[in-house]
């Protein structure tokens, strides 16, 4: 208990609380503006966190993302446009409630159940990660190798929806990660004579490019129309929430658990958690016919799930160094920059930071209630800020941020290059998150693979001899082989079979 109280004290210090408050407002703004996402907010925060102590830096990211995921619901309720992809699952439902004159109830439900989901996610993180870390202390390079492979496989196959394109995106990420000096042999690879490339692409400019520049380019190629807010006046948003909580407590818990589990699954984040939780909520509802007509039940299910997923995604990120979603992929980059190499030993080496992080999750989700209320009350003003003005400002911020990491224009070049790559990939239906996960995990996978191969004198079967490593290995290989088996089986039968 004492470390947690110490951590809470650390987080409540002005040196952490002020950055958290600023990051919260930043996150609320980014979440509420359609087209700006929680991931983009995180990517833009890294150049700032680069100059800070670990606890305030991570607290800023936690606060910004929690607020952004909630705030994404606000334009969903008022404009029928999800502010972030995590709100897309129930935007129609929330808007239908607004059309029925229940905007206050919808917005309040989004806020209250987001906070509950976030707190549950934080609890899951605080309970599960130390226990998992103790177990993970027994892991060797083989287990880490298979875990990272499993994570990347999940990202490419489960999360992207298009496994082949996910795999291509993944391989591209691994190739980008190999640029620079090889960590084991010290050989420069794919540097084409450039001394700057010897140090690698640089994670921060690459992430800023992929998540921010890609979005700026995308928005430059569409007509951004003006929007009409459905609700004229927003009254008391907390009225009726207690009743909803009592009526839908089971949905809340189910949404929380689904959120944490899907969040912890590498590659799948808050958006997928919301979709799955909404669908399950509908499946088990006593009134499934009301879903889609402005019924708060789906909002409770999905609203709790997407915020719980945030905490869930941190579990594999801290314990194994394997990100649960694109936000934690960026966080892992921040952890490495701060010298806090993620893994089970981080609990021994830097317990203050880890417990500080748990405390920051609780504080951020409690802060969400008053700040979220403020966001809803000023929604009309926030939503009237034209995106055409925001995008050039964000671009300048990206440029300066990419420069600030290494104080060189090379960072800006990487940002631009990766922005163009991300844009072309997105235009062609290649998912970005497998590439980012591979970019983060690439060096770790290669290092674990090579050290294991060298340790075992090239005997590949050694990858299957340890109990945990072997199980993970078999599981991963099964996931790799399954599509082939299904493909072969699917071709054999009968006419009129499913179109593969």
């Amino acid at each position, binding site marked *: 208990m004492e470390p947690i109280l110490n951590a809470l004290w650390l987080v409540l210090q002005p040196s952490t609380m002020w950055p958290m408050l600023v990051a919260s407002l930043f996150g609320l703004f980014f979440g509420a503006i359609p087209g700006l996402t929680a991931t983009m907010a995180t990517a833009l925060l890294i150049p700032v966190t680069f100059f800070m102590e670990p606890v305030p830096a991570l607290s800023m990211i936690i606060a910004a993302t929690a607020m952004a995921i909630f705030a994404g619901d606000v334009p969903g309720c008022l404009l029928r446009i999800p502010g972030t992809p995590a709100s897309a699952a129930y935007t129609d439902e929330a808007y239908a409630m607004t059309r029925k004159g229940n905007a206050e109830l919808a917005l309040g439900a989004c806020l209250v159940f987001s906070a509950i989901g976030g707190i549950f996610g934080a609890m899951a993180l605080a309970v599960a990660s130390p226990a998992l870390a103790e177990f993970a202390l027994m892991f060797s390079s083989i287990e880490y190798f298979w875990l990272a492979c499993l994570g990347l496989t999940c990202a490419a196959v489960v999360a992207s929806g298009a496994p082949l394109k996910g795999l291509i995106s993944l391989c591209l990420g691994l190739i980008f990660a190999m640029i620079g000096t090889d960590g084991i042999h010290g050989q420069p690879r794919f540097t084409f004579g450039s001394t700057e490339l010897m140090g690698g692409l640089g994670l921060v400019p690459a992430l800023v490019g992929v998540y921010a520049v890609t979005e700026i380019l995308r928005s430059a190629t569409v007509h951004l129309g003006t929007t009409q807010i459905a609700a004229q006046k927003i009254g008391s948003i907390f009225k009726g929430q207690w009743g909803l909580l009592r009526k839908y407590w089971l949905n809340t818990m189910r949404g929380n658990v689904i959120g944490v589990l899907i969040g912890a699954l590498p590659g799948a984040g808050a958006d997928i958690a919301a979709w799955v939780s909404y669908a399950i909520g509908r499946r088990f509802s006593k009134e499934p016919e009301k879903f889609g007509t402005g019924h708060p039940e789906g909002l409770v299910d999905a609203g709790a799930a997407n915020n719980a997923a945030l905490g869930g995604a941190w579990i594999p990120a801290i314990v194994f160094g394997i990100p649960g979603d694109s936000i934690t992929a960026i966080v892992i980059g921040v952890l490495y920059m701060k010298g806090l190499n993620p893994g089970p030993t981080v609990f021994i080496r830097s317990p203050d930071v880890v417990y500080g992080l748990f405390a920051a999750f609780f504080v951020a989700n409690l802060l969400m209630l008053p700040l979220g209320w403020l966001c809803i009350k000023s929604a009309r003003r926030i939503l009237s800020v034209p995106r055409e003005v925001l995008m050039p400002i964000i671009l300048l911020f990206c440029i300066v941020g990419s*420069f600030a990491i290494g104080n060189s224009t090379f960072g800006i070049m990487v940002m631009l290059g990766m922005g163009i790559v991300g844009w072309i990939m997105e235009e062609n239906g290649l998912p970005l998150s497998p590439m980012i996960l591979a970019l983060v995990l690439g060096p770790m996978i290669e290092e674990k693979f090579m050290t294991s191969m060298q340790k075992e004198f090239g005997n590949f079967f050694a990858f299957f001899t340890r109990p945990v490593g072997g199980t993970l290995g078999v599981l991963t290989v099964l996931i790799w082989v399954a599509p082939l088996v299904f493909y072969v089986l699917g071709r054999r039968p009968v006419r009129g079979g499913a179109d593969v």
Partner: protein
Amino acid sequence: MRFHDSVIGLIAVMIGGFVLYQASAFQNFQSHQLAYGPGFFPSIVAMVLIAAGLVLTFSRLSSLRRAGWIEIEPWLRTPRLVLNAAAVLLSVVVYILAADAVGFLIVAPAILFVLLVLLWGRPAWALVIALATTFAIHQFFVVVLLVPLPWGIVPFFNLFR
């Protein structure tokens, strides 16, 4: 510009081939312990990429004739939107080329102003926003975070230091 899936597969195969070729040139280690050189892992990734590319190419080949190699999206036929995208890209290029020589405090408001006018209109407001944003970013990064943004040619701006 949206390429047909078969073309995307082919591009993946070409990238994989290039990586494989490059990897083959990496130094090889002959000792028993280090039998797997720096080219080993890139070669595996390249082979997976080639395989994925080939499967994608052949699995979508049947629709290639109907759909065509490249689909030109509507925004590419709208000069205004093409100009917007080009302006975003060019503004970063201009910054990279000019910032060191000319200075952040001149290049940043200039590109911001041009982008705001192009994307939003309202030149007077664009000028105010461009100057205010540049000043705010400069103060935050240079004064608070101590990032050495380029000063360029105008020593006068050193006054803001």
